[in-house]
């Protein structure tokens, strides 16, 4: 039975199912309260968690997102049921930590991770085209490094406890979300009362959807970065089939729910600064390619016991804190006195993205195995 299911999930139908389920559930999450065109966004949601914990103080984006917890736990459950839980660690963790930080900085420049880029496109936000193009370019650059022998080195089996740290950390986050402790006057745990952080589906719904997606994604190895990478690297369309199905199903679901508005300017929680949408996601794409997985995949791997992926996730969470504290994150388009003001990055943000690209290129060039 387990073998049959494993073969199904590894097949094209398995990944199509995963894409379809995500494409259906993400717009539903939006309908039930998540921010517009943000039914799921791993980057934004990890940023919201950073805010809730007080790691940054941007008041409009502070909420412990149950979807992230569900992603990890769903993967843990799947891994345990199918005997794939394997505590492992040791593949240049400090590099992965900083790759996570730069991936987040790049994603926040666009105001979305690859998952949100797909969902924004499915909602009519055409800025996502620039983002997906940038993502592909960044991944293509990563492929060049991979072909030239780039590697962060082998991971090694660790004590089981190592594999449980991330799932337990997620459990603690869930406790904090439910118990709502306040650790000091005017201190965390924060819950936004306005802005995207205040927009969320009911806790149980978010958690259950996260669990379902985490389970399916672990079984099918769903990965939005791998989808593009495999096409470039070896013309393999297995993963991108799932991504394509996600996009189509999400678009249809949005149409049914009346959640589509085509355009570039004034899109929700988005900006139309084409250059920095492109460059930000190039940085994110390169960082994901160098780290071996999109931000969703890193959560699913962390749930399976992969400590290296866990470190990347922590890098993303703290990277979000830096991004908001140092004014690196993108600012949405706004209408001021009836006039459209295109959003984008501060000078700090632009420097950070360029700096990130330079660092990631250096990592790609220097972390080589001798031929």
């Amino acid at each position, binding site marked *: 039975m387990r073998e049959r299911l494993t073969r199904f999930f590894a097949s094209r139908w398995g990944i199509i199912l995963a894409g379809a389920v995500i494409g259906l559930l993400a717009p539903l999450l939006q309908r039930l309260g998540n921010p517009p065109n943000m039914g799921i966004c791993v980057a934004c949601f990890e940023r919201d968690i950073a805010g809730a914990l007080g790691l940054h103080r941007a008041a409009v984006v502070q909420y412990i997102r149950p979807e992230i917890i569900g992603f990890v736990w769903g993967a843990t459950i799947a891994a345990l049921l199918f005997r794939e839980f394997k505590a492992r660690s040791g593949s240049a963790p400090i590099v992965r930590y900083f790759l996570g930080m730069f991936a987040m900085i790049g994603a926040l420049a666009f105001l979305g991770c690859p998952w949100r880029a797909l969902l924004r496109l499915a909602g009519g936000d055409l800025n996502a085209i620039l983002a997906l193009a940038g993502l592909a370019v960044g991944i293509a650059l990563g492929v060049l490094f991979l072909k030239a022998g780039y590697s962060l080195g082998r991971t090694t089996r660790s004590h089981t406890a190592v594999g449980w740290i991330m799932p337990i950390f997620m459990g603690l986050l869930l406790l904090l979300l439910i118990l709502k402790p306040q650790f000091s006057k005017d201190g965390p745990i924060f819950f936004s009362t306005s802005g995207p952080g205040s927009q969320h589906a009911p806790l149980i719904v978010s958690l259950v959807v996260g669990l379902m997606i985490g389970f399916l994604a672990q079984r099918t190895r769903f990965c939005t970065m*791998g989808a593009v990478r495999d096409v470039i690297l070896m013309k*393999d369309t297995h993963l991108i089939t799932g991504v394509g199905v996600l996009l189509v199903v999400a678009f249809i679901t949005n149409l049914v729910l009346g959640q589509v508005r085509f355009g570039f300017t004034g899109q929700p929680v988005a900006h139309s600064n084409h250059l920095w949408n492109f460059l930000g996601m190039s940085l994110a794409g390169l960082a994901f390619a160098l780290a071996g997985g999109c931000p969703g995949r890193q959560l699913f791997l962390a749930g399976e016991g992969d400590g290296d992926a866990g470190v990347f996730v922590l890098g993303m969470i703290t990277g979000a804190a830096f991004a908001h504290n140092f004014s690196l994150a993108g600012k949405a388009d706004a209408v001021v006195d009836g006039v459209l003001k295109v959003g984008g990055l501060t000078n700090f943000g632009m420097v950070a993205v360029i700096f990130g690209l330079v660092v990631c290129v250096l990592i790609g060039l220097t972390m080589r195995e001798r031929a």
Partner: protein
Amino acid sequence: MAKTVDARGFSCPQPVILARKAIAEGEFPIEVLVDTVTSRENVRRAAEKAGCKVRVEEKGEEFKLILQR
């Protein structure tokens, strides 16, 4: 004489890249060692796509994929 590719401990897409390199070199049979189900599936898929016949031996927590032309 079998060519051995030790891809244990490498995360995707390394095992596939190493396997494809060996396939391109043309020295068969090739033995690819991996230690996760994901890598096993990925290498199997890539090898079959490249026209190889694939046999998998399970050794504890590790897998040995034997690729033949």
